[in-house]
């Protein structure tokens, strides 16, 4: 690979787009939409280019960019790409344009919307690529600002409250994390994930933290854990999520669920686990319960929702909890079962990607329903939509069945691998988790049945258009990707398998 800074290009191109939008206040809505979409697509393009230059048989960071940034704080501008990052970059590249297209018809200040969206996209990409806590945390917090405005300004009637709750809750968590890292910095003098990971692998991180005071390792672990757990969110830190997802504009919801929720899981895998293996191991049993709580309660709570967006939001909690379930099972078990461990981790990574695809597609469908019904999105506001709009119904069904883990579509293989791994490590957790699978099927089919089946009624009784060209543009590629990755998971697994193998073989007992 030549010296072109691919990763910086990935991160900053959306921001450049945002800057251009910011500097052209007189831009027409159509032009600003187009511009935003163009820059949003850059991630996919750069991501694919980076993937083409990516050596998939190697586990370490590639295309690394490291430059001294703030010498006095020992802070580097350090970007790197490994399989996990690449996976999430590609996911961002897919979800972001789709999210922009989802709000294509929103006439409210399109330029600003595109601007915030691109800002958000760049920040998320930065989180996925940064290898030093300082830039990482900058990106992490920067992502909140545009997200806040996206929810507040383009959201539904309860958006303001939801946005505040979202931001305050997340910042609250982040504050703990920041304090934790301040302690780490005080103890070790570095913020580089790579160096900290090496320290942790040699057991020195805990020793150095302990040298400050005995309770620091635990306190720091808890702080970092809180910051990440709120972001994912891990049950019971999730109460900001349903209102935020429900009130956000469709594009925002898609991005929130498709990409931002992955930031938390990514943090767990990139930071918490490598840096605090022993603490995580010690805490894994109760955490396992929490993850299971997310799986089960998320699914059952979704069953009770009458707001479709809230329902999908709860399903997100459920799906993301699978990822954490896998991680915690691995952490709880240690290194005894390499096959199960690699299964669980592969599954968690796949699940991250697949959930991004299917959940954002589901949000898109709900958004489309909302657009047709003039803002209604209750479970009982529809009926018989499949008669009126068969193509749309079919595509929506694709997303739904992908989400409930139908074999042959992408959602299944991740869940299967997670359950396979978790079963091998902590069988009872897998058994309890099955309850979530069942409930997911139940509420998604209820959704499908109430909205699409039966006689036409509610919002569908009148005029109800089938999928428009715009919707087809978004949904057909998404559906095709779901099918593709369902049939050929190797396309994704191949990217991160060496990484997973390394993880599985280097676990601490």
């Amino acid at each position, binding site marked *: 690979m030549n010296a072109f800074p691919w990763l910086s290009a990935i991160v900053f191109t959306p921001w450049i787009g945002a800057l251009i939008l910011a500097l052209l206040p007189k831009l027409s809505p159509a032009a600003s939409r187009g511009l935003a979409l163009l820059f949003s697509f850059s991630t996919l393009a750069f991501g694919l280019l980076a993937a083409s230059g990516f050596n998939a048989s190697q586990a370490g960071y590639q295309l690394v960019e490291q430059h001294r940034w703030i010498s006095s704080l020992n802070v580097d501008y350090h970007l790197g790409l490994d399989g996990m990052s690449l996976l999430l970059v590609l996911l961002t590249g897919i979800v972001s344009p789709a999210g922009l297209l989802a709000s294509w018809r929103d006439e409210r200040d399109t330029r600003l919307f595109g601007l915030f969206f691109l800002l958000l996209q760049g920040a998320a990409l930065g989180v996925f690529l940064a290898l030093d806590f300082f830039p990482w945390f900058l990106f992490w917090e920067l992502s909140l600002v545009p997200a806040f405005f996206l929810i507040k300004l383009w959201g539904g009637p309860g958006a303001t409250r939801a946005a505040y709750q979202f931001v305050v809750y997340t910042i609250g968590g982040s504050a703990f994390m920041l304090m934790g890292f301040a302690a780490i910095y005080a103890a070790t003098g570095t913020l580089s994930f790579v160096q900290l990971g090496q320290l942790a692998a040699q057991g020195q991180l805990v020793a150095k933290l302990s040298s400050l005071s005995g309770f620091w390792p635990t306190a720091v672990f808890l702080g970092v854990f809180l910051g990440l757990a709120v972001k994912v969110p891990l049950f019971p830190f*999730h*109460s900001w999520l349903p209102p935020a997802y429900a009130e956000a504009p469709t594009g925002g919801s898609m991005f929130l669920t498709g990409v931002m929720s992955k930031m938390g899981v990514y943090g767990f895998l990139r930071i918490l686990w490598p840096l605090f293996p022993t603490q995580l191991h010690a805490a894994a049993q109760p955490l396992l319960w929490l993850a299971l709580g997310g799986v089960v309660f998320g*699914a059952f*709570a979704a069953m*009770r929702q009458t707001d479709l967006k809230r329902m999908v939001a709860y399903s997100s909690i459920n799906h993301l909890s699978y990822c954490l379930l896998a991680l915690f099972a691995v952490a709880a078990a240690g290194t005894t079962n390499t096959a199960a461990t690699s299964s669980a981790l592969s599954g968690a990574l796949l699940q991250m990607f697949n959930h991004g695809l299917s959940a954002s597609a589901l949000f898109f469908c709900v958004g489309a329903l909302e657009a047709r019904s003039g803002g209604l999105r209750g479970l009982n506001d529809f009926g018989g939509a499949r*008669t009126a709009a068969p193509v749309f119904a079919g595509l929506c069904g694709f997303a739904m069945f992908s989400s409930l883990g139908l074999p042959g579509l992408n959602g299944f293989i991740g869940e299967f691998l997670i359950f396979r791994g978790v*079963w091998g490590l902590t069988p009872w957790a897998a058994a309890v988790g099955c309850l979530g699978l069942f409930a997911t099927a*139940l509420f998604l089919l209820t959704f499908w049945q109430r909205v699409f089946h039966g006689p036409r009624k509610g919002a569908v009784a009148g005029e109800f258009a089938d999928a428009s060209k715009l919707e087809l543009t978004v949904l057909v590629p998404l559906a095709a990707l779901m099918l593709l990755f369902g049939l050929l998971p190797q396309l994704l697994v191949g990217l991160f398998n060496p990484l997973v193998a390394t993880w599985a073989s280097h676990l601490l007992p």
Partner: protein
Amino acid sequence: MNLPVQLLWLIPALPLVAAGIGALTPRGGRPIAAGAAIAALIGSFILSCLALKTALVDPAAHLTANFSWFDLGTGTFRLGWLLDPLNAFMCVMVTFVGTLIFIFSLGYMKEDANFTRFFCFLSLFAAAMLGIVVANSLLLLFVSWELVGLASYLLIGFWFHKPEAAAAAKKAFITTRIGDLGLLLGMLWLYDRTGTLLFFDNGAGCLEAGALAGLSSATLCSGLAVSTAIGLLIFCGAVGKSGQFPLHVWLPDAMEGPTPVSALIHAATMVAAGVFLVARVYPLMSADQALTNVPLHALTVVAAIGAITALMGAVIAVAQNDIKRVLAFSTVSQLGYMMLALGVGSWVAAIFHLLTHAFFKALLFLGAGSVIHAAHHEQDIRQLGGLGPKLKVTFATFAVGMLALAGFPFLFSGFWSKEAILHAAEGWEVSHLPLIAGLIAVVLTAFYMTRLVSETFFGHGRSHASEHAHESPAVMTVPLAILAACSVLIGFVGTPAWPWLQSQLTGEPVHPHGWFEGAGLMMLSILLVAFGIGAGLAIYARRTRVTASQRDPIEAKAPSLFAFLGARMKLDELYAATVGKVNSALAVVSDGLDRYVWAGIVNFLGRLGEFAGVVYREADEEGLNGGFDTGSETLREAGKVYSRSQTGDAHAYLRALAVGFVVLVLVITLGGLR
């Protein structure tokens, strides 16, 4: 010409492609969709025959073609195809029966607006079923298994604008999914224990001796062998899919779908999948047979479930008035037979019955479809009647099917397969209860089938629909005739005298036992059949129903029992009151936790923050500021006193300073104070 196992994937792939074509065909392209579906299935049929020929070259061999699906850690995850007589026979049966059902659908669905989509789903259904059959991996099987579920969901809910159909579809999917979760867990456990999900992999597969030995030797804390536990979990899947007690409730509701779909579900594809699954993993299920110190054998449970289901299905069928529901419960009952056979150790008999049942149940459902089609979608047998003379071909073929199902001696296939099962049950050492249940079911089967035929075809029409019925077109009757012929002929491949099928399935020669070895049991069952048919004729054919509202003779005798059975033993209500209640309670609890507890905690913390702010403000104003005020006041007072020494003349100050300096220096230097 043989079909190499590497090309076995073509068999499910052809209908899958047809499904794709059907999905992309617009509504107007009826011939394309239907043609593609039928042609693909005929192609699959031909390939299946070739595959069968290949398999029968060496019946004992398991031909496999495995390939890597994706990398997993240091290894890879592999899938594969399998060819042995078991799935070769299944392929032939599925494609053959499926083809006939497809052709029948041409006529039956002629007027439906969504004709193309129907064939798309049918093809998908067939493809998924064929996928189950040819899979050499439990995961691939599971994938196809779920696709079968999806296709059945789509087809049962084909007339989704009817709320009942939509509800039935959902019920089918959810109920089978409960079983599937067991299957999933079993699969996970199996994978975890053996490290592979391939059935046969040159000695490394999970159904081969090495793996099985490990599975049956390990025990759980309760003394149960691991293989037993895994087997039972996998059996859960079969229970769900094959409509076994207690998960049979979806099967009668599935009658909401179009009749060819019912035929396909009940005869060739879906319900057969469960039996096939158990037969496929039979080595695993029976791995614990050799153990004596275990509390439970997997097959015992299978036999018990099978017996219960066989009996229960037959009993409920007696009190049903919907022509398709009677057949549905007969299917439940017959599937119970098959499970019973599997449980008592004769998987061959089970497969034999599966094959014969496929033909005559397809025949019966298609016949019922023909009747419904002729009678303008009237399904209640009380409203029908007197159709015999009007629908001659349908009547004749239906009668053949009825006799086959009832096990009419010698001529009909159902007799032979049922005899094989009863024979196996007789030889089971554990208990004779399954045999007794089976025999009771024999009587009931003969009885309710006679009732069905009498009510439908004898007497005279009791409604406008039945009076103006007319025979279906040839596209529907020809498949009926073919199926009728097969229902008769198929039985002869597995008679005790010439057990060709059995020997081909097991791969070792089965010696024909003499005519009289099981003659006692055979005579008993013949008598029972005769009794059942006689009773039926006596009650229903001698005095045919006159009006639709006339009470059933049995209902007249035992109204509460009849109502109980008619309501399917109130099992649905029971489930709604237990499982459903628990489920919704859980949902309410989850939601409530979320809305009140977590949100409450968060809000409480927020309030706490506000409160702290108030406290700090008060402390600031009262405490700190107050202290400063007092201090300042004191200083000011002090200043007032001190200010009196100030005159205000700057020159004077400066002068004083300078003079003071001089004096001080002089004092120090001259006074010697240094």
